[in-house]
């Protein structure tokens, strides 16, 4: 069947997206990101008895599971650190990443009622998800510090490198969050697949055990999974007083940065159609 006549082709709408203005608009809405974070935290624990305790239950439970079961089955080389501390140090950054991506990925679909009413840069939703899980990570970190004190680990000077590692991790997390959230709007299957992919990611990342790769493959792997050298880096600095492996961190940073640019561009491109399908 011949459909009705459309508009003349020269009239077609082409949205111009300039990264600079887009980022400026986003900066103007930083208060909105904080409000959304606050809302997320309030909503999440409203009408729950345990409240904020929930944010640390998940990593602690995993620590217990790994310590009780995994450690007994395989002999894991922790470099001399107590296994619980070793795992916990991997789990905090991993949980931060996976919760950010999982919640961020669904954030647009879950907030479709808002998408249809008010205009503002849509990336505030996945970014707010990252900020929200950063709050959880902060609480877990306080627990970690307590754990370190109990087990007798004195803070090392190298801990000062952690903020650098964090910047790389946040870049990578936002990049994946942006990609996931915008794709989920169009391909809802990803919403179902996301938790599975993240589950696999847990085993493909040196969270519960170090992954012994040859030095060459380690570099290649840093491109694919920038989290791997980062988590090793957290351990090296906080547990063993070593500097991060800068060559690997550099690759990881570069990879994260490229992904962030790609993710942002993808998001902005797909953003145009969000309200049509959300």
């Amino acid at each position: 069947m011949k459909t009705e006549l459309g508009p003349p082709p020269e009239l077609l709408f082409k949205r111009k997206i300039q990264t600079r203005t887009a980022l400026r608009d986003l900066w103007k809405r930083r208060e909105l990101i904080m409000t959304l974070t606050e809302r997320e935290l309030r909503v999440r624990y409203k009408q729950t008895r345990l409240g904020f305790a929930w944010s640390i239950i998940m990593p602690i439970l995993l620590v217990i599971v790994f310590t009780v079961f995994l450690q007994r089955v395989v002999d894991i080389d922790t470099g001399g650190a107590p296994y619980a501390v070793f795992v916990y140090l991997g789990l905090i950054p991993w949980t931060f990443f996976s919760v950010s991506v999982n919640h961020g990925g669904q954030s647009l679909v879950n907030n479709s009622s808002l998408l249809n009413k008010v205009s503002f840069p849509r990336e505030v939703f996945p970014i707010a998800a990252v900020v929200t899980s950063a709050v959880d990570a902060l609480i877990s970190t306080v627990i970690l510090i307590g754990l370190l004190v109990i087990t007798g680990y004195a803070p090392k000077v190298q801990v000062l490198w952690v903020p650098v590692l964090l910047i790389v991790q946040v870049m990578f997390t936002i990049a994946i969050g942006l990609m996931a959230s915008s794709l989920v709007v169009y391909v809802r299957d990803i919403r179902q697949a996301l938790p599975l992919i993240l589950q696999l990611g847990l085993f493909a990342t040196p969270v519960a055990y170090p992954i012994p790769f040859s030095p060459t493959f380690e570099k290649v792997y840093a491109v694919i999974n920038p989290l791997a050298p980062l988590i090793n880096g957290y351990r090296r600095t906080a547990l063993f007083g070593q500097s991060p492996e800068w060559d690997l961190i550099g690759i990881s940073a570069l990879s994260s940065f490229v992904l962030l640019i790609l993710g942002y561009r993808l998001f902005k491109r797909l953003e145009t159609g969000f309200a049509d399908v959300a």
Partner: protein
Amino acid sequence: MLPEGSVQAERVWKQFRAGRARRLLEIPQKNQASRKRKGEWLWALKDVNVNIEPGHSLGVIGPNGSGKSTLFKILAGVMYPYAGRAETVGRVGALIEISAGIHPELTGRENIFLYGSLLGLPRREVATRFDHIVDFAELGDAIDRQAKFFSSGMRMRLGFAVAAFLEPNVLLVDEALAVGDAAFQQKCLERMREVLAQGTTLLYVSHDLTSVEATCARGMWLDHGTVVEEGDVREVVAAYRRSVEEVVEGRDLPRGPINVMSADVGSGGPIPSHEDVEVTLSVESDASRRAILHIGMSEGTAAPIFSVSRELHFVQGSTKITCALHDLPLPRGRYVLWVAVTNRMRHHLQSWHPTTTFDVTGPGLDPVPAAVARLSPVHVKATWSEGADEEPSS
């Protein structure tokens, strides 16, 4: 660069895909119609232009599915056109599909602040307007309750109050008021006039034509995504009413035991206001019976301005009935004569239907204050006098 509060759309086109992509593991549908529809693009808006200067108002009317909400979403900046260009300058307060983004898990208070920051207002500015919003929404202590425990009316009131009190440059109101009770609807309309007077641009979609007429200066009639008519709101609304009336008149009336074969008001030609007029009907009945004949006059809608009825005797075959109406209280305009026949139990022997249109000449109606909607036109002769009050107040 356009000034703040401008709303402009130039040759906007928008299409949606009906149906969806085929799924894996899906049972193929036998239904031919739904298979054909799948994946077909439908135009929601075709070449629509909007141009509103800051502080002006536009009322958008049209049947369901005519593209009104789509147009609003594009103007609100949440949706992008397929072709053409749309621009709204300044902060937009939109009330699209009731309860603009009220989050059910949050309290009313939290919702107000959330919506404020969605609009881009700093916290302290929301705080200064907070009391006004709560007052207007008549929420009182309920403001600290979660919004999911609100009634739909409360949610709508909160949504409207937030959208209208956070001082947007452009206010979009879409069908939202229907949920509120009559008193609150009036209050909302008043508030819309108020923000309009303060320089906010107003766009209003509603099926309540009287309120559109009372609120907006300009009107736009959309049908199937195209602009049918645009201009002075009264003319546009009148044209839309006439078309609705034609649709109603064009409907085939099922034959009943009693049928109205012909109806005339006066003897052809316009009828002068405030004079006597005769309505002549020719009615066919399949049996001799007593029944009640109702006649009424309206501007096109089924709800009449006035109606009269009388129990009459109908012979088998054709009966001619005349009814003289004295001192016809209608102002200048075009009207429709509606007729129905019922039995004493008020069961229909012939349903309420329009029969003929006629014109009335004479005086028009005096203007009403802004924001006041006249329900239906009745012309009453009035004599005025003025003079000093005999008991001057101290």
